[in-house]
């Protein structure tokens, strides 16, 4: 009998190259400890409902009725469900050809894609074509599909911010492309300096890499920064002059915690610039139901919108989408509800508004609590979370801690995070999972733990950190970048 095909040695090398720290070493260790009975606070992934955030009422009512339409035959249904939820459910069911159990169009139900187009138009002031909007099982699926379409071989490079959400690095590894990093400026609140972009691109090209696309994550993950309009303009001009597709990950567009830089979509800025840019720049924009104040991660609902992508390319993208038959229909309905929520005058409007505001205001407060909590530690510097769901503090580690990490065979921030986990049950993701400058260490946590638990969590962190520093510090002070 020959050796088994699925020996580790004979599997696809690209698969082995993939790293996805969000559910990597720290998460696996945390899960082990949880099984052993330790109380764990999972702050490794932006998963609001897992940390106690309640689902919004209206969408759940609509989906319940869509999942079980026989409920609407019951004369008492109006006692349990508000009339607008019932009407919405009937409306969505009428858009399907056989209810939620039937495959939809591979691009998603046309009626819902129209709702998304209307939302984009309302948000940006420019019309959007539903034919160029594809619904997907979460935004990640769309990102992977686009990267697979763009990457032809290992000489094709994708500009990715550092630090980045490691879906991008994982996908680039999987598809055998080349990641071209551009560093965000930590000392300037993680802003994007256009010089860094030029530098990275030039350097990559010198190595023989064909830079094909640029990824922006706005608001940023893990860094939280919101791009200014002028920054976006610079980026668009850069992409046009360098002939790059712009991939705009805008999944956190609802999560904004400061007023100086509200969310502006890349598409809006592009169209504000007008021709020729607005007709030339190839742009793909991503959005999801997993974040915002909805946090419906488990539904797997998202979309991508294509701008200035040629019809023949769109046909190929459609072809690949069709192999999976269709995105899940409940997720599509969640998306429709998110982009077309209850309006003033609707029966459910007040409750919906109240629930949404409560979540957003609490997130804003928690962003401050966390940032302040981290900054109260003398070896920790934390930029304010302008948007998204994370805090990404820089932890300055003393040389002896770094040595201890090396001895334990761990990257320093992994070492620190494992110790933090074991001491406090707080499960974070080490900064090395997102990329960072050499010799600088971070961890990513979310701002999602319940507001009433926050002070205790930050106190717990501070206690651990101060003890860690006492253990490893010496009179010479701590390491610096």
């Amino acid at each position, binding site marked *: 009998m020959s050796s088994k095909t699925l020996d580790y040695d004979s599997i696809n090398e690209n*698969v082995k190259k993939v790293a996805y720290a969000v559910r990597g070493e720290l998460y696996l260790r945390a899960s082990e400890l949880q099984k052993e009975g330790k109380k764990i606070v999972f702050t490794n992934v932006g998963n609001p409902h*897992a940390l106690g955030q309640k689902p919004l009422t209206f969408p759940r009512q609509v989906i319940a009725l869509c999942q079980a339409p026989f409920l609407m035959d019951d004369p008492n*249904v109006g006692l349990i469900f508000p009339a607008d939820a019932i009407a919405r459910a009937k409306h969505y069911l009428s858009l399907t050809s056989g209810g939620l159990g039937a495959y939809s169009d591979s691009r998603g139900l046309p009626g819902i894609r129209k709702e998304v187009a209307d939302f984009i138009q309302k948000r940006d002031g420019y019309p959007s074509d539903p034919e160029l909007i594809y619904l997907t*099982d979460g935004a990640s699926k769309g990102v992977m599909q686009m990267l697979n379409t763009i990457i032809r071989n290992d000489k094709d490079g994708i500009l990715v911010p550092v630090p980045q959400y490691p879906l991008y690095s994982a996908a680039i590894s999987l598809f055998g492309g080349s990641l071209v990093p551009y560093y965000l400026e930590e000392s300037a609140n993680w802003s994007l300096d256009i010089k860094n972009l030029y530098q990275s691109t030039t350097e990559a090209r010198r190595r023989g890499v064909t830079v094909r696309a640029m990824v922006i994550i706005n608001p940023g993950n893990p860094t939280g920064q919101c791009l200014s309009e002028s920054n976006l303009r610079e980026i668009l001009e850069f992409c046009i002059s360098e002939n790059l597709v712009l991939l705009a990950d805008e999944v956190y567009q609802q999560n904004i915690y400061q007023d100086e830089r509200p969310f502006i979509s890349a598409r809006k800025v592009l169209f504000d610039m007008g021709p020729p840019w607005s007709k030339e720049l190839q742009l793909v924009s991503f959005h999801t139901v997993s974040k915002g104040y909805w946090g419906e991660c488990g539904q797997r609902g998202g979309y991508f919108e294509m701008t200035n992508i040629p019809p023949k390319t769109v046909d190929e993208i459609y072809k690949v989408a069709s192999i999976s*038959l269709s995105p899940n229909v409940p997720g599509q309905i969640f998306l429709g509800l998110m982009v077309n929520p209850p309006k003033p005058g609707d029966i459910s409007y007040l409750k919906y508004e109240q629930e949404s505001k409560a979540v957003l205001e609490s997130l804003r407060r928690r962003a401050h609590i966390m940032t302040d909590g981290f900054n109260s530690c003398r070896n920790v510097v934390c930029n304010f979370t302008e948007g998204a769901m994370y805090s990404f503090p820089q932890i300055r580690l003393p040389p002896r801690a770094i040595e201890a990490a090396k001895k334990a065979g761990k990257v320093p921030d992994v070492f620190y995070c494992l110790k933090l986990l074991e001491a406090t049950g707080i499960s974070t993701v080490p900064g090395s999972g997102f990329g960072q400058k050499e010799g600088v260490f971070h961890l990513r946590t979310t701002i999602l733990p319940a507001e009433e638990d926050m002070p205790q969590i930050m106190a717990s962190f501070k206690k651990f950190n101060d003890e860690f520093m006492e253990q490893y510090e010496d009179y010479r002070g701590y390491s610096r970048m």
Partner: protein
Amino acid sequence: MLSSDSISRAQQILDQIPGRATGAYSHSQGIKGLRDTIAAGITARDGFPCNSDDIYLTNGASPAVHMMMELLLSSEKDGILCPIPQYPLYSASITLHGGTLVPYYLNEASCWGLEMSELKRQTEEARSKGIRVKALVVINPGNPTGQVLSEENQKDIVEFCIEEGLVLIADEVYQEDVYVDNKKFNSFKKISRSMGFGEEDIALVSLQSISKGYYGECGKRGGYMEVTGFSASVKEQIYKIASVNLCSNISGQILSSLVMSPPKVGDASFDSYRAERDGILSSLARRAKMLEEAFNSLEGFSCNKVEGAMYLFPRINLPRRAIQAAQAENAVPDVFYARRLLEAAGIVVVPGSGFGQAPGTWHIRCTILPQENKIPMVISKLTEFHKAFMTEFRE
């Protein structure tokens, strides 16, 4: 409004979900409690134990196929044995992941039988061309062909995979759709375990879906793969790839657990559930028969018995003049026929060339799914069209 057992089942499921949060990302393999339920269902079905850690819940069975192709294929030197005719997810996925499809032809003359001699021949030929044959895909019941493998056949396949060191990918999504009394669905897991082969002997990937059977919940995107016989280091890689997409949709996960663990005798919903199930399956069997007979009554058509799944794959002997007309239009002959059928009768089928067929033969794939009371109308429209077509192109 809702039956008492559906309420208690819902409570039970909610208790299995951390924080009862159905909107949260779950474990990347799927919610543990639901996997336990599915594992118990598999154990009850096969009579051999199933470990819930071997289960990966996915958005339908298709993403599981993609994951396996990703894992197995490093280059075009890597080959996967696929039945011809096949469900074109396999050919598409292999192409997408840069591998090579190694075809093995099912024998139409013997009811789409899978012949070991053909499998062996194709494997040897591929290897002689420098291809590393890594896996064998078997679709049972077959799509588009509808045959249900005999136990003997399955045993031969298991032995072949073990001898040749191949991963066996068992697409079993139509396991509930069997319409003949002389055949039974047996999972490849059951067959290999009953032969005494365990995890050390055979690497097996078994696929199931909520899209087919009698539930037909295609739009929910639910399914799973059960993966046994893999080393721990390889399983880590599978987990890692699954984790990049975080998890499959929760609604689909829940449905998968319900499909593998439906209401039991004594449950409040058992009778109504059973009636619904039997009604659907018996109707599918009747529809299969009606359409099969209809095709067999048409000039030039021959249709194998639909033993299972949801399709007919009748062969059409196209007159020479029809083939010439197709060529004149630059069309593949079965595409030409299917297009004419669509335009004349409004019936949408998929040309056999989309699934692969023995060279020089033409087929169309048609589902057995139009509502039973509409089938006579479908048959009459088909008949009318076909008669006119043959009149036009007959020698």
